[in-house]
């Protein structure tokens, strides 16, 4: 089947496979998997942001009833390798060595310093509380702006700047210096986190006679963990098996290695028995990766006619005390340095970024990585430009949109596909912006504080090996699938994609069904088991369907060819004259059934001689796929937000939110819509109130869901979706583009622009510090 024959939508809006089971209370999350023999782990954690461990007395804990073992960081040192997230792309990066449990110094509030294993979680927690530690508190590092001037957090590194990055187009400085007008604003982005409702959890079991470590855990990238656990514990890679059963959301939080997980595996190895750890919410809030704490000074240069010439940015990215292993922390700043200004045709770009250590929780790759920052900086400055110059916001954007492809942005990024023209056209078709403007004006005339805003965004999805591969990191940008014809004529598909609720399994199943001409129900799909599926990247960077789906499609196409060859043998026809339709092999011209797939399958398994003396039927096929040269596939879109501000409380109420989006070929519209809406909710949450606050002494304040607000149903409007027409499919393969992060990327920027529009309506100055909490809004309004 050639690509030209394929429609833009490949499958129906089929509900996700597992949701009937999950809605029946028959979940299999890691903590649901009963293992009566498992011991329970609990951790002693640092109560300080930064403190030396002068001494630790674990004897009282060891003596307690039901306690099997206690290890400190120092004691585990001999059994577990340390880790450092180096990348060959930036050999100059300062990368401190990290250990599963802090050894001499704890560098964030909540960092684990000892593990206790006991017969119950309660006993383990009691024992952890009985460990006494003599701490020597040290000054915290919690102001990214002054990180460079503070004494180094890691004395061996001499500096708190892990890496300095620069990106400049040729002659940028001269162009920027000659601009008629430069608009400069300072953005402060709030540290926030993913909050998957199921906290991180793991059960590790070790078989000492065979040296086999079997792990059930809540994770996005089981194959990555197989490689890393083997490496850190000195085990044979093929004897480490990771199973990820149901996973209760992940969003990037469950993408990296956590010290607790390594310590639990080490405990299982040392004790030769299963050990289980399920983080509670306080532990998750203290130690899950956090993201997007940036200070960005950004400038937009304009010529005399108000045309945009280019952007320049100075970014400071505040990470934790270490670089997250194994991926490092370059993603956010790199997104800023490559995507600021990207929707527009510009003459130049100049940017710098400093990635700085802080005594806060580890930073990582939360949904959208740096994309929401790049979108916010760009689109908020564009709005400021139009406010200053009096231009119409939409016309101003449309005049400078990237239309001609391929397009090389002055940030150096080559875009092969973008669909901004299509998206603006779709936006204007879906919403009469004059009516919207008139409604807002009417609201204002009635004394309300109302506004609307838009944000154009790009999502780089389905990345190739350009970063981790070149960096020498063991992170796969590929995926694989095995597709097997069972004797009953049904299909089993083993895929390295992973499922945390996105519906990737369902989409992969639909693709295999389509390729083999069978109904979805004839396919059983297995994911999340490194012992069974091919090695692959799992979930990161919106890649499941674009990469994993492609691999499954390719495998299914091979099996299809073999099935048609076998049927051709039986029927004395050429394989080209045959087709697979509705579970049968039919003659292409006439539709006449040659043989049912079930009959053919049984024959091939049990009477193989019927296909000729020299032919071995091949009833399974596999394929692996990953972009080789292509750095990413871009999805594009525009989000529109309309809000109202309560003048008394300062609360921002999103009244309307619309996403126009283009993402190549769609496999399952229901899943795509679900991803975008869920992504928008997280983007709005981050813009409105989500904030990992730290006290002056560096201790975390957002340690519960009472102190870290995530959106509830009442906080959000219905989210309208418009799918824009796609540009031609020039990509290889099916031309699927990821959608997992698109909603998150543009939501906050659109909301911020709407809020600043509302503030401007009252004569108040715009706000560029997030989140847009009521006190901040009241201050902007001059009410407090």
């Amino acid at each position, binding site marked *: 089947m050639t690509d030209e024959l394929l429609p833009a939508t490949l499958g129906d809006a089929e509900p996700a496979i597992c949701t009937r089971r999950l*809605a*029946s209370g028959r979940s299999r999350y890691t*903590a649901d998997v009963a293992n009566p023999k498992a011991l329970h782990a609990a951790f002693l954690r640092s109560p300080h942001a930064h403190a030396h461990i002068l001494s630790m007395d674990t004897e009282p804990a060891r003596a307690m009833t039901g306690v099997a073992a206690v290890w400190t960081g120092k004691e585990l040192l001999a059994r577990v390798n340390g880790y450092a997230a180096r990348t060959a792309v930036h050999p100059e990066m300062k990368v401190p060595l990290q250990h599963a449990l802090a050894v001499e110094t704890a560098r964030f509030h909540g960092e684990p310093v000892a593990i206790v294993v006991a017969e119950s979680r309660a006993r383990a927690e009691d024992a952890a509380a009985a460990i006494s530690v003599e701490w020597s508190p040290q000054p915290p590092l919690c102001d990214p702006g002054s990180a460079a001037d503070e004494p180094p957090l890691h004395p061996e590194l001499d500096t708190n700047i892990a890496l300095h990055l620069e990106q400049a187009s040729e002659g940028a400085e001269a162009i920027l210096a000659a601009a008629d007008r430069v608009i400069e604003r300072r953005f402060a982005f709030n540290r926030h986190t993913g*909050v998957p409702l199921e906290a991180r959890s793991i059960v590790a079991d070790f078989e000492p006679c065979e040296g086999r470590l079997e792990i059930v855990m809540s994770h996005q990238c089981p194959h990555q963990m197989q490689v890393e656990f083997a490496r850190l514990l000195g085990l044979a890679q093929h004897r480490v098996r990771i199973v990820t059963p149901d996973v*209760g959301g992940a969003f990037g939080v469950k993408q990296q290695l956590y010290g607790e997980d390594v310590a639990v595996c080490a405990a299982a190895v040392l004790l030769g028995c299963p050990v289980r750890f399920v983080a509670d*919410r306080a532990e998750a809030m203290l130690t899950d990766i956090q993201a997007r704490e940036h200070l960005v000074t950004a400038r937009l240069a304009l010529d005399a006619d108000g045309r945009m010439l280019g952007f320049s940015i100075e970014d400071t990215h505040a990470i934790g005390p270490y670089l997250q292993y194994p991926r490092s922390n370059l993603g956010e700043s790199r997104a800023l340095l490559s995507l600021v200004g990207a929707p527009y045709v510009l003459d130049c770009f100049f940017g710098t970024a400093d990635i700085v250590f802080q005594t806060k929780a580890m930073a990582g790759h939360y949904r959208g990585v740096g994309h929401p920052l790049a979108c916010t900086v760009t689109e908020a400055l564009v709005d400021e430009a139009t406010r200053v110059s009096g231009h119409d916001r939409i016309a101003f954007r449309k005049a400078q949109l990237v239309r001609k492809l391929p397009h090389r942005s002055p940030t150096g990024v080559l875009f092969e596909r973008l669909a901004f023209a299509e998206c603006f056209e779709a936006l204007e078709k879906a919403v009469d912006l004059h009516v919207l403007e008139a409604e807002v004006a009417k609201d204002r005339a009635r004394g309300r504080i109302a506004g609307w805003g838009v944000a154009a965004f790009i999502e780089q999805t389905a990345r190739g090996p350009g970063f981790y591969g070149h960096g020498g990191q063991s992170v796969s940008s590929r995926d694989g699938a095995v597709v097997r014809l069972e004797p009953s004529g049904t299909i089993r598909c083993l895929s390295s994609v992973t499922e945390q609720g996105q519906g990737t399994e369902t989409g992969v199943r639909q693709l295999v069904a389509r390729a083999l001409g069978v109904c979805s129900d004839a396919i059983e799909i297995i994911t999340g088991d490194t012992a069974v599926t091919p090695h692959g990247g799992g979930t990161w960077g919106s890649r499941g369907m674009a990469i994993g789906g492609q691999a499954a499609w390719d495998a299914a196409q091979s099996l299809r060819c073999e099935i048609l060859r076998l049927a051709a043998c039986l029927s004395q026809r050429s394989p080209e004259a045959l087709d697979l339709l509705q579970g049968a092999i039919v003659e292409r011209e006439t539709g006449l059934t040659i043989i049912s797939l079930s009959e053919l399958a049984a024959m091939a398994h049990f009477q193989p001689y019927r296909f000729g003396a020299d032919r071995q039927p091949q009833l399974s096929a596999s394929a692996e796929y990953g972009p080789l040269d292509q750095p990413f596939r871009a999805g594009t879109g525009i989000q529109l937000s309309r809000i109202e501000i309560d003048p008394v409380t300062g609360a921002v109420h999103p009244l309307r939110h619309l996403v126009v989006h283009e993402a190549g070929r769609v496999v399952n519209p229901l899943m795509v819509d*679900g991803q975008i809406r*869920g992504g928008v909710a997280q983007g709005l949450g981050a813009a409105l109130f989500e904030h990992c606050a730290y006290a002056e002494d560096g201790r975390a304040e957002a340690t519960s869901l009472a102190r870290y607000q995530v959106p*509830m*149903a009442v906080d959000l409007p219905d989210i309208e979706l418009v799918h824009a027409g796609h540009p031609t499919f020039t990509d290889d393969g099916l031309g699927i583009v990821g959608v997992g992060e698109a909603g998150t990327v543009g939501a906050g920027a659109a909301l911020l622009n709407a809020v600043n529009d509302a503030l401007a309506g009252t004569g108040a100055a715009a706000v560029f510090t997030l989140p847009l909490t009521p006190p901040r809004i009241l201050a902007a309004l001059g009410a407090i």
Partner: protein
Amino acid sequence: MSDAEPVRTITCTVNGGLRTATVPVRTSLADFLRETLGLTGTHLGCEEGQCGACTVLSDGRTVRACLLLAVQADGTVIETIEGANTSGRLADLQEAFHVRGALQCGFCTSGILLTADAMLSEGNALERADIRAGLTGHICRCTGYQAIVDAIADIGAARSAASD
């Protein structure tokens, strides 16, 4: 510290069956359901009353199983998602959630289904805004809630049409 965990024997009706168990007095109702009875359809998202994932019915009212001790359930009638599922009482809501994509990871779903059913059985006609308000106290981090509101609105309409 004394080594013996203080325990108490409790008896309650869980999903229609009488259950007697001896539990440490500090065990939460949620842990009792999950660990002692193996009813893992009740999920724990926060263990401090914020997320609603652990919602079950106690004597017909929705409660947070993480905020109650197992000993407080002594003598009560508890229904969890497993019981509601077996009875078929929620079948329409469950199917609507499935078809609408009202769950992605599913971790919030058991609690939301029980609350949704309680919301609908109060018999009021529900606007979307009422449904959103009724979901306060439940966190879904995946869906953005819209599909959940869709599913509950569908069944609200269907149930009230059937009772007309």
